[in-house]
């Protein structure tokens, strides 16, 4: 401890000055460590130089505020900074790839993107839809229930933070294998089963208690998630666009509303910007917040009323970085400074130092700016809902952040300095994995293979989790995550949010981490394709995307290299499909004693359907109907569930052929609009065989298929045709009477009729040699599918 450098100011409360000017480089780094700032040497030097110019020592409040603002979590240094790769410099991944795609597509229906806590697109009748997906990996690793619950709470506040009323949640989770050997668990890493139980319970508890339906999601298992759980929490909201307010001015009062502030969630963001270690439990437990969904429910009611009565000029949530981020970013956005009296902040218990008050991440808090003449009315609204709200300061014309506590000035920092961290420069390399395509004979009994695949954790039914989430509350869920009596897995969820309109919002997602082990570029392209085709399969179109990155330490060049590749694919395929990104989030530094996380890009797709009466579900409807495959099957099983089952990764990762995919998507949408599609299901993990089995047991009917009819490029084995995970493909059920119409529509596309729906509830597939390759009762297939994660069967 460099005690001599910490100078206690003579105040009735705890306040230190730090003599940075006198500190050596080594000491600067030590101070960064001792205070939990997570700032690197260059950044510490910039802070030292700034205060040298100011002619005084910084206070602990100032250092903490700067550290929060400059953290990876808040400032996204990696995405905004420079990256050197192959002798070229990328000036901001975000600008170069993500935002650029949106800018180039520039659709008229984007209302506000990348500006606020959530992206907003136009919906119908003057309403907009807001969407945001957050990562909450680090907290969930330390405290699964609390981490996941506050992840949901946080993303709901992001949506409230653009004046939208939350209408649906989506949650995508990644865990280690549930049968992970306890003996192999290093100290400080929790068993995947414990994490799985805690995270799913946390998500259910928050969404259910707040009364927001959890309608979409996925659960994925990967060895690398054992040490690095992946928790993506998303929320979709609805707002009347004319009530959207973003016009704060100097003099507007800063109001803090919601829960009280305590020591929970101190240093959450700096913690999220570092690797997890054995000590994370001990050191970082206070970084995980405590969830109180009922408080947020009340807060939501008050905010919606304040919105409707137009009482406030701006709003933001308190998430990572607490007041520090909320106050700083609000002032910055409106070209103001801010004055805040920290002693006005309502506390859970006394004894918090000013810096703790300023950076605490206690949950269920929102920050509003209110024109002085509306203050009383706004406070009344909160009071009516039993929500505490307090005026804690005001925006100022002077460009400084000034914080006071009990009459003492505890911080006074120039806004421009605060929001200008030294630019980060990182080095990346493209590393190509040395991989081989496996060689193994075709299994003699493919029925058995299909049964085993259906119980593979990534394919097996997630019903036992999905039913613990309320997906019906609000009564607007037109297409549910589980289809009908047999709980088939629908490709997307559809919400009908407006009473006087048939228009629906379509929510789906795509994620293929296993492909990333081969090539990050194709993983990203595949995730985009999967999210879009899931949306298209139920009738969605006019699709907006959200990107969420979970990666390892970006200081390591090859990790950063794969991130660059994924971003390139994001640009290439977003522009090719004309699907703009509207919001996103990254979580880096996902590393544990077991190694780095498998790079995992989640793409969430938000589409619309002009009339929910057009919506198509995935269950087979009627014997005698025809079954078509749409899209080309390739010999690309690298990273597939089938290879994994056989003990291989492989090399031939599925690619995305955008031009062909677009034609397929358009044709499917057209067929749905013309009412020619009775059922539609996308082909993903497990390929054709799994998709066909799911359609059959969801509908309680059989299928008779012939692999010889499946359009393909050089696929010479039945098992490869059955289980290839080539992108951009669908199975479509068509009434026999519509055969001519459907085929006319599909002319010049890659498609074929491959069989028909049968009364006899068996899945019978003829192999390439004309012999029966698969023959199983649908009930048996369903049992295999339900067995793995079900406590009921």
């Amino acid at each position, binding site marked *: 401890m460099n005690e001599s450098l910490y100078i206690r100011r003579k105040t009735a409360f705890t306040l230190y000055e730090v003599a940075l000017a006198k500190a050596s480089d080594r000491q600067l780094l030590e101070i960064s460590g001792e205070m939990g700032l997570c700032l690197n040497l260059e950044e510490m030097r910039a802070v030292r130089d700034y205060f040298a110019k100011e002619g005084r020592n910084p206070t602990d409040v100032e250092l903490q505020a700067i550290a929060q603002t400059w953290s990876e979590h808040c400032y996204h240094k990696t995405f905004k900074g420079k990256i050197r790769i192959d002798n070229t410099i990328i000036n901001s991944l975000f600008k170069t790839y993500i935002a650029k795609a949106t800018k180039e597509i520039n659709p008229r229906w984007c209302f506000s993107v990348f500006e606020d806590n959530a992206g907003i697109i136009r919906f119908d009748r003057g309403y907009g839809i807001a969407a945001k997906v957050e990562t909450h990996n680090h907290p969930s690793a330390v405290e699964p229930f609390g981490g996941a619950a506050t992840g949901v709470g946080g993303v709901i506040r992001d949506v409230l933070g653009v004046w939208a009323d939350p209408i649906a949640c989506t949650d995508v989770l990644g865990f280690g294998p549930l049968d992970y050997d306890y003996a192999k668990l290093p100290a400080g890493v929790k068993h995947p089963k414990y994490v799985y139980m805690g995270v799913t319970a946390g998500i*259910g508890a928050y969404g*259910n*208690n*707040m*009364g927001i339906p959890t309608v979409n999601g996925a659960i994925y298992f990967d060895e690398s998630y054992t040490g690095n759980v992946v928790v993506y929490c998303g929320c979709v909201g609805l707002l009347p666009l004319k009530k959207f307010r973003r016009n704060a001015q100097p003099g507007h009062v800063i109001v803090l509303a919601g829960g009280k502030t305590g020591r929970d969630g101190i240093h959450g963001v700096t913690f999220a910007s570092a690797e997890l270690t054995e000590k994370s439990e001990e050191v970082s437990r206070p970084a995980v917040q405590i969830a*109180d*969904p*009922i*408080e947020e*429910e*009340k807060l939501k009611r008050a905010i919606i009323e304040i919105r409707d009565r137009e009482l406030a000029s701006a709003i933001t949530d308190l998430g990572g970085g607490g007041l520090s981020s909320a106050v700083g970013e609000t002032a910055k956005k409106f070209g103001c400074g801010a004055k805040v009296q920290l002693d006005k902040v309502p506390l859970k218990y006394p004894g918090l130092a000013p810096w703790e008050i300023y950076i605490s991440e206690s949950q269920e808090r929102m920050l509003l700016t209110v024109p002085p003449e509306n203050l009383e009315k706004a406070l009344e609204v909160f009071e*009516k*809902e*039993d929500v505490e709200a307090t005026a804690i300061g005001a925006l100022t014309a002077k460009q400084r952040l000034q914080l006071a506590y009990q009459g003492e000035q505890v911080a006074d920092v120039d806004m421009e300095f605060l929001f200008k961290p030294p630019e980060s420069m990182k080095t990346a390399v493209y590393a190509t994995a040395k991989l081989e395509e496996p060689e193994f004979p075709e299994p003699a009994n493919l029925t058995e293979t299909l049964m085993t695949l259906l119980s593979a954790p990534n394919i097996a039914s997630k019903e036992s989790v999905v*039913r*613990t*989430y*309320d*997906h*019906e*509350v*609000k*009564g*607007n*869920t*037109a*297409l*549910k995550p589980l*289809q*009908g*009596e047999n709980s088939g897995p629908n490709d997307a969820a559809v919400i*009908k949010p407006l*009473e006087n309109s048939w228009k629906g919002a379509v929510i789906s997602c795509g994620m293929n981490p296993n492909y990333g082990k081969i090539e990050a570029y194709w993983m990203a392209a595949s995730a985009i394709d999967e999210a879009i085709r899931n949306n298209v399969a139920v009738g969605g179109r006019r699709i907006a995307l959200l990107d969420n990155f979970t990666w390892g330490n970006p200081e390591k060049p090859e990790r950063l290299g794969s991130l660059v590749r994924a971003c390139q694919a994001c640009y290439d395929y977003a522009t090719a499909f004309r699907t703009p990104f509207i919001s996103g989030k990254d979580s880096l530094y996902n590393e544990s004693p077991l190694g780095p996380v498998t790079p995992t890009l989640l793409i969430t797709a938000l589409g619309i359907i002009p009339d*929910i*009466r057009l*919506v*198509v*579900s995935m*269950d087979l*409807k009627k014997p005698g109907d025809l079954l078509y495959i749409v899209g080309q099957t390739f010999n690309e099983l690298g990273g597939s569930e089938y290879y994994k089952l056989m003990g291989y990764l492989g090399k031939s990762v599925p690619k995305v052929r955008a031009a062909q995919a677009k034609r397929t998507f358009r044709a499917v949408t057209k067929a749905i609009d013309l009412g020619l599609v009775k059922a539609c299901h996308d082909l993903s993990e497990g390929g054709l065989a799994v998709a066909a089995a799911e359609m059959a047991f969801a*509908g309680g009917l059989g299928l008779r298929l012939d692999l010889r009819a499946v359009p393909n490029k050089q696929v010479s084995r039945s098992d490869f045709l059955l289980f290839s995970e080539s992108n951009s493909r669908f199975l479509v059920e068509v009434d026999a009477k519509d055969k001519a119409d459907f085929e006319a529509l599909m002319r010049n596309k890659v498609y074929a009729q491959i069989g028909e729906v049968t009364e006899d509830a068996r899945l019978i597939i003829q192999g390439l040699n004309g012999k029966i390759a698969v023959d199983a009762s649908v009930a048996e297939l369903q049992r295999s599918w339900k067995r793995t994660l079900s*406590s*009921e069967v």
Partner: protein
Amino acid sequence: MKREEIRVCILRVGGTNCDAETQRAFQELGVQAETLHVNELAKRRNLLDYQALVFPGGFSFGDYVRAGAILARWLSAKLDNEIRAFVDDNRPILGICNGFQVLVEYGLLPGFEGISEYPEATLAANIPQGYNCRWIYLKQENRGKCVFTSKVPAGSVLRIPVAHSEGRFLFPREKQQKLLAQLVENDLLVFRYCSKSGEYAEGKYPANPNGSFHDIAGICNREGTIFGLMPHPERAFYWWQQPDWTRQERMPQYGDGKLIFESIVDYLTKKF
């Protein structure tokens, strides 16, 4: 009374979260439905301006003690007189899910001898344990006393979703057979969980989603004017809310839940 004159009070507190869809269901039938915070009602003291009272679903006060317990005690402390007057006037009170829990905790249901000083039944933690959101089938058991099911023929089967973790209807074990007999005798039994074809679930999951005694899903009081049920009729109001609508060639205009709201409105138009 004309439909458009009828006023339904939907009562909410922090944690109530099914008020909007419940209000929508009533409004769709042409009656006035207002959602009111309990603080507001306690201030205005105008419960008797309304002809019907509804406790919607949710997690009132977070259900941090026992589902529905805090709101029930809060109401009996602050609004007991109004509520008793409301009951005495045979004005209908509906409790859905958390609302049912509130009615039982308050002593309004089953109310064998009128409003009870202590809960006579309970809605315990589900077996199998945990939150469960699914569509189930209900058999209408009431012989005619319950005003909330006048439009639902006895013996008919309705399809409505449940979503709760504390919905296992129980009587004290030593009295359960006696109380069940009373329930049946006084025509307090309204809904039992059953299969699609109408066979009683006999406690078997998932037809009986929570392990309720005697497959009980909903009951009313002696007068048939207070009714509580765990399933959510407001989520089965429109055809497009149903889980299998994409399978149907032609869908009926509405879901089965609408019948319950219609029954209430029918009662109100005749009574007032």
